[in-house]
């Protein structure tokens, strides 16, 4: 298998603060979502991948080369940073053209990149006149102008309007379908879900899970979920679930008499049954929520497993 990224016992710390610790990764071509809460180590890992930091221990190789102080490797890497950083006095076109020419390309490639992100109409404006979403798209254009083999995107959809979100998601998926590699970092699960099934979960500087998103979901599903339902007759609703073997517990809120809390490890089964009962028995549904259905919980469970 052709590996694009290989990390072996990769560790990085800043004085007494740990960035990442003993990370081992082997990433073949494809689209991967790098997920983790704030401070998990995503940025540190990306900075090592893009050659801004050197690991304290271990090594990282991209296309079998170290990225630190290796400019020739960047012919094959495109990077879209998280920061809203720009050159205020130049136009979007001048910026992309500079990048294109630095890669030995010309106006054709620069034009294609601007078209891909929908900035041709505004390309001669100064970047300081761009909106946040336009600046974000410009960053993406600068990352893809040279058609790299590896695209590293840090929060690529930040500040982008819903219409362009769909287009960019499609762009990223198409990139992956061409056999290229995309690593996109985010702490928003739905964004990543829209672009890829492959997830790298990072927390407290360590890789906690690596694989298909459904596998991660299954990990989640094998642990009890809490689901809160607010209805006009909670006790009657609860009675329909008393004999259900998938329901591990039922409780009623002390503060809100209309709320009932179900605990189950078969969410999909529960939702299916609940929907059926709500319709057949004409319950009024006021609200439904799952307080622990989030990424943090995945990590909590995974930490518990560790």
């Amino acid at each position, binding site marked *: 298998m052709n590996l694009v990224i290989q990390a072996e016992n990769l560790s990085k710390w800043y004085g007494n603060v740990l960035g990442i610790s003993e990370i081992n990764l082997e990433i073949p071509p494809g689209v991967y979502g790098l997920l983790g809460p704030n401070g998990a180590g995503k940025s540190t890992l990306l900075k090592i991948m893009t050659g801004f*930091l050197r690991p304290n221990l271990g090594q990282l190789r991209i296309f079998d080369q170290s990225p630190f102080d290796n400019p020739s490797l960047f012919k094959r890497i495109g990077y879209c940073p998280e920061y809203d*950083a720009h050159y205020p006095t130049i136009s979007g076109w001048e910026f992309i053209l500079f990048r294109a020419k630095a890669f030995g390309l010309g106006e054709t490639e620069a034009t294609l990149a601007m078209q891909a992100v929908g900035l041709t109409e505004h390309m001669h404006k100064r970047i300081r006149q761009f909106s946040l979403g336009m600046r974000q798209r410009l960053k993406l254009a600068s990352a893809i102008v040279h058609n790299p083999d590896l695209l590293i995107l840090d929060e690529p959809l930040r500040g982008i309007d819903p219409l362009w979100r769909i287009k960019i998601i499609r762009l990223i998926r198409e990139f992956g379908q061409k056999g290229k590699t995309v690593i996109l970092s985010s702490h928003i699960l739905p964004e990543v879900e829209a672009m890829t099934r492959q997830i790298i979960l990072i927390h407290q500087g360590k890789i906690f899970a690596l694989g298909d998103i459904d596998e991660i979901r299954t990990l989640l599903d094998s642990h009890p979920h809490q689901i809160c339902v607010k209805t006009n007759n909670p006790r009657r609703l609860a009675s329909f679930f008393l004999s259900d073997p998938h329901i591990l517990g039922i409780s009623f809120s002390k503060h809100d008499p209309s709320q009932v809390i179900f605990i189950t490890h078969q969410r999909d089964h529960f939702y299916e049954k609940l929907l059926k009962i709500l319709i057949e028995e004409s319950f009024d549904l006021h609200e439904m929520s799952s307080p622990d259905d989030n990424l943090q919980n995945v990590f909590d469970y995974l930490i518990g497993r560790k």
Partner: protein
Amino acid sequence: MNPLINAYHFFSTQLRRGKAWKWFTLIGLIPSIIIIATLSFSLAGGWGSGDKSNIFLEITLNYFFKFYILLVPLFFSTSVLAEEIEQQTVVYLFTLPIDRGRLLLTKFFATLVHSLWLVGASLLPALILTNQHHLTSFETSKTISVIWLTALLGTLAYSAFSFLLGVLLRRPMLIGLFIVFPWEQFVQFMPGFVQKLSIIYFVKSIMPVALPEKASLLRLFQQTTPAPLAILILIGLSVFFCWAAMARSHKREYIMGEQ
């Protein structure tokens, strides 16, 4: 197009469009404006009608050699890397397939050209106005040319030093201001070899006229190096500072958001 030439044009465009360029041009023209205003005032009968060439020369030399050629390189050349880090645009440069040191050196060249232009274009009219009555004399023209070229050489040396400061330090401007201004003044009071630990010493060695010094203590320890040697040393120092800056840029790590 060669990527470095492309980069040079890119950086040059930014410099020309920036506010700093316009403000420093204005600041550089202050001595010329003052001289023209004084001459006009004198013509109108104020402040006596005598030859004020000596005063104008003192103003010009003090202004440029103790202030302007220190400030301009300090601002532009420390910002070669510092500005990119502060703006967080260093990511766009260091993810190019161009050697970091060479890219920074290219940006340094762009700032150097602009600094030399600022100094040269501001100093020349001031020198011409100062010596307006003696311009036809060969000696005067030669002196003006040497002073002008010395200022450019001093600008080169200060620019290279500031470039190195910008790569080495997190706050190059603050530390640069305290090294360049007080140190360059203070070290001239020192006897022996210590004086040579400054750029101004070699600049003074090349100058055809002495820089005006108020403190008589300075004359006590005044010494010079032969002009050709001083020129070589200034060029050598500039090359060394640039090389050191390039070498350091390779080793340095960049934690984005550092100020």
